[in-house]
């Protein structure tokens, strides 16, 4: 059973956001990280030093591994930010201030 079925969820209408221009579906109330996980995406940034991929680690706002650019604001924690229709997410490289 998938998690939505398990909790008998009847979410409001799905909407789309973009990840680097690509359309991704999202459900009302989901965070950036939740929508990306639901779309099968587990990494959305590369590290400053070695350019290694990262995504969610702690899931609760403590570790800062999930940093992402949301509507041109870099360094947002994907596990905390709730999505709104039309949000433009961008994968983040390095400090997020280079692009």
């Amino acid at each position, binding site marked *: 059973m998938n*998690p939505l079925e398990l*909790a008998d969820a009847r*979410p409001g209408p799905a909407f789309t956001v973009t990840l680097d221009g690509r359309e991704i579906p999202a459900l009302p*109330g*989901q*965070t950036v990280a939740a929508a990306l*996980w639901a779309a099968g995406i587990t990494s959305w940034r590369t590290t400053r030093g070695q350019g290694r991929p*990262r995504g969610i680690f702690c*899931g609760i706002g403590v570790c800062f591994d999930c940093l992402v650019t949301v509507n041109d604001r870099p360094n947002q924690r994907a596990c905390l930010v709730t999505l709104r229709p039309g949000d433009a997410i961008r994968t983040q490289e390095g400090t997020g201030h280079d692009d």
Partner: protein
Amino acid sequence: MTERPHLAVIGAGPAGLAASLAAAARGVRVTLIDAAPDAGGQFYRQPATGLGARRPQALHHQWRTWERLRDGLAAQADIRHLTEHHVWCVERKSSGSDRPDAFTVHALLGPLQEEPATVHADAVLLATGGYERVLPFPGWTLPGVVTAGGAQAMLKAGLVVPGRVAVVAGTGPLLLPVATGLAAAGVRVEALVESADPKAVVRHTRALAAKLPEAARYAARLLRHRVRFLPRNAVVEAHGDERVESVTVAALDADGRVRPGTGRRIPCDTLAIGHGMLPHTDLAETLGCRLDGVRVHADEEQRTDVPGVWAAGESTGIGGAALSLAEGHIAGRSIAARLAGRTPDPRGWATAAKSRTKLGEFAAALDTVYAPPAHWTEQVTDDTVVCRCEEVTAGAIREAVGGLGAADVRTVKLLTRAGMGWCQGRMCGPAVAGLASCELTPARRPFARPVPLGVLAQEAQEAQEAEATDAAEAARETRKAQDHAHPTEKELS
């Protein structure tokens, strides 16, 4: 009539909720402040409202208790619940706790955390809970490797799972609900890898006996989902390039060393891992509260050693939701009495105190059984990244210790930058301490959250203005006092 006393509770988990309800029922005005969009904390984390979950209890246990807390919060008009308020500092304005407005709670609003907000209160309860400890191993920074609690949090709040095939590993009681939760949500859980030896539990049966039925229920559920249980085993490496593709699991000997030649690969796209939890102590640290090791010190009434500051739940030591509830209840009653100028009668909370004692013993027993394997550092290769934020390797830390003589976490930090990044050492602290063979000491972080410079500047300006106002006030007072000493004619007449 004077204004009723005002309590600020930070953290709306089991501890903060129990305390708020107990205090409000006894005439205290409560402001309950939490970073999350909903009450519940980690244990009772709720699905986002927009997801319209009709059966959120499917992801929970002890749902009845949550219903009682939730309904109590809704019914209690004396509790103001501030959601999405990230507290970065609690400031103490006066040395005495009896002065109104003794504390200012500084918070940042919303997920972007840019807009400041403040709450003034006569007393503060720190109920900030804890966060998961994960010790490093090769491959632990790969996407798809997540904390066990984090996987649970994402599942409970967002109704999402990280992949299709998972291994749940590490040590501690949290792994059980995480493995059963993921399995129930459709993830194939290949194995639950526990480094501790369940046989050790037998030596602690007295304290643990009460929890055996719960463990048995979990065991039955694991069996139903055909989850293999691998005790006395550990994940020694996660493999993959862009994300985890498999893990190597190896058996441990009685000393906690990996048995050579026992390694085997398990293919998976997710590794949920945890090695126990650590208390959140940063707000207590800035308030100058005494810590016992890594937890906030609290007395029988849940008071810290700073007047006007109480602490309850996992900020005072990891022990589970039931212990947090008991401590919160006691704290709430103590606060209500103290703010009314009375010495509380502990007989009023005898039941809660009894469960606090019992659950405390239980937590101590669990702590002994579920310690990370003694020789975990032997698996950490020199090129394993230890500080995830600053990408500091184990080799660099070993060099700082062996070559440059660093003997504590602070010196390692100064020499290597381990712990200087975004998370301020919350993730790598225990690992650095382990690799340097020194004790994990409180980090003394100035703020509990990163604070935009603009907010700090604004605070500084306001403080300056307040000082100026205070000075003007003082001057007025002096003038008044002088006037009293030399009464004017008008006053005489």
